């Protein structure tokens, strides 16, 4: 049996990659994918703890997260499509109209 | 239907019917509107005579009562409560009598917005009737405030050059006093659990110090309306600016609402306080009599002269009321009627000459008796009535008031009556001054002035004679045979006097 620490380390690495993706990349789609990566990193951690602690709540949370992520993707992709229609770009640095 | 057919309800609200009819008439059909208003007011007068026929003077209680619960939520017991007794019947008749006369006087004087004018005038009649008939304090207060609105517009729309100023002053002044009265009314309503005047009078155990404050609150409202010196400052403005018919009603009826308020509310509701206040009221009344007379004499504007003479005359009324003996109070009530007739007629006559000359300045007149003999003779009779010549109405009132005041235990000092009797001399001074400067002496400049612009001064026409002759009839009737008038009120007055704790 693989000790739980391994899963946690993997999950942390995945999360760090996701964070870096969000912070570094300018393509909105990539950022999106990075966010998904982070979410799944969290899922991995949930599942790992769930099996270790013999509790189903972790798995229940994972389902929630998957559902929320799906919804988020739906809304997020729609926004991105709309933005692309008006700006002909999905570079997030060009989307600064909220600048104070 | 039963509700509407009660005589007093009908009397109060009948003019609304006329208003309703007028609303549906084209504003350009001035004559039809005038006739509708006149007929309505005459029918109202007819109803008042019907009420008189049913009235039993020997009964001191309220009669022809119409009484319904009205607002009874949250422990409030406000009623629709109309009733008439010897204290109010004459004033009701006076109101119904003067309204058609005033309407008739506007026949050619009011040419603009006749429709609005007549509507306001009839609404005013509703308000005045309500004031004299309401026996529930709350209902009374509503009518009391309601009269302000049409009068405000009558002055404000059809008045003279400073009409807006005068109308606002009139409104605010009266409101200021009424607010205090409203507080007192609310206190009474909460204290007694009812707003009905007879019930409150029967209850009658208000502590003396509270009585005093309530008395003062009511006095504030009524004294302004009367107006008692020194609260008279709104009167000359309102009278000078008001159209003739407005002045007639203002002097004839609206001022009486104040004095009536004293008789109806202040005396029976707060008897101890009233007795305590009597010397003070007498003092102010006496000052008012002399002050009004002297100030009148110095006026250059004839309407102002008559307005200040009202201050003097109503001083007599107040003196009589607070003499608190039958002579004083009965004289005062009769004097209210007399003042309504005489001063009303004076305003009518002044209005008639003003219509021709467009000036009220006394000094431009002179020698009018020669040019307009009928007008001059009528003016003479009315003037004499106003200055209290025996055989005419003014004397009967003034004499009984002074007699009552002289022997009054409540006032307790003959000095007030003696000083007030000096007012009789001064009345001769200012009335004769006016009569002389306008009607006697050499021809005034206005005569030629008018001639330049047309046919010159004319004497009264038939409509004008018809307008004043009814008043003249009462001037003589009350002067020569006042018995029926005293008979109407005597039992009620004596009953009222019996309730007062005179020392």
């Amino acid at each position, binding site marked *: 049996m693989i000790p739980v620490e391994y899963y946690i380390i993997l999950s942390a690495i995945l999360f760090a990659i996701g*964070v870096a993706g*969000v*912070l570094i990349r*300018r393509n909105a789609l990539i*950022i999106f994918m990075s966010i998904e990566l982070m979410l799944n990193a969290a899922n991995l951690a949930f599942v790992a703890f769930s099996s270790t602690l013999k509790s189903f709540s972790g798995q229940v949370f994972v389902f929630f997260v998957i559902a929320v992520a799906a919804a988020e993707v739906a809304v997020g992709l729609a926004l991105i499509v709309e933005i692309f229609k008006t700006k002909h770009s999905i570079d*997030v*640095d060009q*989307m*600064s*109209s*909220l*600048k*104070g | 239907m039963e509700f509407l057919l009660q005589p007093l309800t009908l009397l109060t609200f009948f003019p609304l019917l006329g208003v309703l009819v007028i609303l549906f008439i084209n504003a350009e059909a001035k004559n039809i509107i005038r006739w509708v208003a006149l007929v309505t007011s005459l029918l109202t007068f007819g109803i008042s005579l019907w009420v008189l026929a049913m009235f039993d003077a020997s009964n001191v209680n309220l009669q022809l009562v119409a009484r319904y619960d009205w607002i009874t939520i949250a422990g409030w017991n406000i009623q629709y409560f109309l009733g008439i007794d010897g204290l109010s019947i004459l004033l009701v008749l006076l109101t119904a009598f003067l309204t058609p006369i005033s309407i008739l006087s506007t026949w050619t004087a009011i040419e603009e917005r006749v429709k609005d004018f007549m509507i306001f005038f009839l609404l005013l009649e509703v308000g005045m009737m309500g004031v004299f008939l309401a026996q529930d304090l709350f209902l009374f207060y509503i009518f009391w405030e309601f009269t302000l609105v049409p009068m405000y517009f009558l002055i404000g729309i059809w008045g003279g050059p400073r009409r807006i100023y005068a109308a606002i002053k009139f409104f605010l002044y009266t409101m200021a006093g009424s607010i205090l009265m409203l507080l007192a009314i609310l206190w009474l309503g909460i204290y007694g659990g009812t707003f009905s005047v007879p019930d409150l009078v029967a209850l009658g155990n208000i502590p003396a110090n509270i009585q005093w404050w309530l008395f003062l609150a009511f006095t504030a409202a009524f004294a302004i309306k009367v107006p008692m010196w*020194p609260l008279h*400052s709104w009167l000359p*403005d309102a009278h000078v600016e008001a159209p003739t018919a407005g002045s007639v009603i203002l002097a004839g009826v609206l001022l009486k609402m104040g004095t009536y308020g004293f008789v109806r509310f202040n005396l029976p509701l707060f008897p101890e306080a009233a007795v305590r206040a009597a010397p003070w009221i007498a003092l102010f009344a006496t000052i008012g009599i002399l*002050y009004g007379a*002297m*100030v*009148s*004499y*110095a*006026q250059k504007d004839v309407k102002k002269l008559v307005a200040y003479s009202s201050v003097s005359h109503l001083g007599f009324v107040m003196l009589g009321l607070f003499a608190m003996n*039958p*002579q004083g109070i009965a*004289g005062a009530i009769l004097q209210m009627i007399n003042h309504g007739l005489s001063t009303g007629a004076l305003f009518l006559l002044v209005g008639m000459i003003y219509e021709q000359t467009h000036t009220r300045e006394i000094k431009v007149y002179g*020698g009018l*008796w*020669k040019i307009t003999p009928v007008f001059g003779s009528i003016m003479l009779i009315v003037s*004499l009535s106003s200055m209290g*010549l*025996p055989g005419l109405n003014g004397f009967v009132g003034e*004499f*009984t008031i002074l*007699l*009552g005041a*002289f*022997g009054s235990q409540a006032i307790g000092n*003959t000095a007030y009556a*003696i000083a007030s*009797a000096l007012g*009789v*001399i001064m009345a*001769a*001074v200012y009335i*004769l001054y006016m009569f*002389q400067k306008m*009607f*006697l*002496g*050499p*021809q005034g400049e206005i005569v030629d002035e008018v001639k330049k612009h047309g046919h010159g001064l004319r004497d009264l026409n038939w409509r004008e004679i018809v307008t004043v002759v009814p008043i003249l009839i009462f001037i003589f009737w009350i002067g020569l*045979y006042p*018995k029926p008038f*005293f*008979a109407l009120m*005597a039992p009620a*007055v*004596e009953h009222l*006097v019996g309730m007062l704790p005179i020392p």
Partner: protein
Amino acid sequence: MHFSETVNTGFFFLAPWLVFAPVIGLLINIIFGGRFSEKVIGTIASLASGASFVVSVLLAWSLAAGHGEAVTVPFLEWIHIGSLELDWAFRVDSLSTTMMLVVSGVGTLIHIYAIGYMHEDVRFKGDPGRFRRFFVFLNLFIAMMMILVSGDSYLMLFVGWEGVGLCSFLLIGFWYDMDTLGRPSWANSNAAKKAFVTNRVGDFGFLIAAFIMFWAFRSFQFDEVFEAAHAVAPGVIVAITLFMLVGVAGKSAQIPLYVWLPDAMAGPTPVSALIHAATMVTAGVYLITRSAELYTLVPQAQYIVAMTGAITALFAATIAVGQYDIKKVLAYSTISQLGFMVAAVGMGAFVAGMFHLVTHAFFKALLFLSAGSVILGLERGHHHAEHAHHDDHSKGKKGKKTEHREEHHEVFDPGDMRNMGGLRKTMPVTFWLYMIGTLALAGIVPFAGFWSKDEILLDAKLHYPAVYVLLSIAAFFTAFYMGRQVWMVFFGEPRHEAAAHAEESKPIITAPLMVLAALSLLGGALNLPFEGFHQLGHWLEYTLREVEALPLNLQVAGISTLLALFAIFLSWLIYGRNPLKAGQSDPLKKPLGFLFTGMENKWFVDEGYYAVIINPFKKLSYFLADVVDWRFWHDWFHETVIAGTYNWLSNTALNLYADQKGIDAFANWLGTATQSLSATLRKVQNGFVRSYALSVLLGVVLILGYLIVK
């Protein structure tokens, strides 16, 4: 004195017609008079007044038949309220019928005279339309006077009292648009107003007396008052009687309220004769006589009344000496004679007072009416003279009428005695009538005035020596000024063209005068001071209870006659021997100096009243009206203080300070503060998603770091 309430016998039921006959007369003239000719109008009015006289006679007859027992005829319930029960009832007793007879008798004669007089007067004054009005007023006067004398209570007396005051006002101001010379002016209407207001001052006294009376006796009715009078404190009676004296002073022209009567001569002459000599002005004397039972209770009040009368008698007589207007002389003479009457009734000599009242009514009416005849004569003469001139003019160049009129309105005063002289020849009838009146007034045997004046003097001598002295001097002056007047008017040479052309009056004017002259001659027979006579005294005794019937006292009569004759002689020395020339000033002017100036100017009493009462009253009125009421109370207090305070509160205090500089300013500060804060903060918002994400990361790191460190 008890009397029967119901009237069964005699003509007493006719009593209301005393008043209603003239009222009907005036109503007919008001309503239909426009269509009648002058004669018809005058006849109706005279008949109305005559009917009143007939009723008076019938009442007197019934009274005499009933042995003088007073009768009350109830008529109308007037004011009934509380304890006040006031009725209009007619009281027929010997005193009231005496007055009724005098009033309606003299009144009717004057009505007849006025038909002739006013016919001419309205034409000289240029307004014939007023003929009718005159008779309406005259009838109204008779009615009011009848109410006065026939009233059963003090209040009904007061009704008539004020009523005659009104008529006096209307008739003095009859020519209200001109002065006595017919020029447009305020003079006549001022005189009328003065009379009314002065009378009102007197009425004030009467009213106060009535109030005291009511609360002391609970009645105004004569008998009830007299009955109760004995039971109250004398102080009350003194107050009543003295306040009543104020009323008497007003109506009967006594000091200090006599000033209206001379001015009242602005009225047409019949008015002066009827109202201001014979009847109305004697109402005060009647009132005191009526109240005899009150006055006799309080000698101190009686003394004051007597002295008032006596001083007035002398004072007015001195003024009469200095007057030039024929009617003014008679006016002051009237005041003086009224002083005699008031003094008499004040002394308790009620019969003497009433006797003098009656004879005075005869001879003073005669004098006034004759003076009217003289004035008319002069007017006619003036008219003629003008016509003569006019004719001369039109012969030369056809002069226009209007021009001529203007000349003629200039200065001529037909009442000025300096314009007269020598009228004895041109107006003989009037002259003889005037002589009779003069001798009666001067108190020469056997004219009526002698008997009545003598009775007063005799009473005064017995009870009040001071009054006797004053009255005797007054009597001397009386004879003197009448002598002066007769010499100036009727003797000597005419001093003006008008006097030279004067014409005698028509019979309708002179006929009533003859009746009055006969009465002046024989009036003394009413109450001759001999045993078995004293008719008037006996007649009045029914009403006045105790009447002192004094026999003739030769000493008093002799002294007074000698004084009068001496005065007439003196006046002849001054005015008769060397008649006045045109333009010459009065021969007394130089020797008497300032005394005569005083008499001429009525001792400056009018001026004094102006200075002390009228002008201060006016000033106070203007001060109150303009300064106190308007500028202080209306403008300053209401506009500045109340409205101003309100405006200040709403505009400055609340709007500017509390609202704009307080609440508003705070709200605005809140806004600007937020703005500047956000201006700094907005720099954080660079719009890059990555920087936001970084800040989220930093936040997470911080929170985690905190959790770990903790």
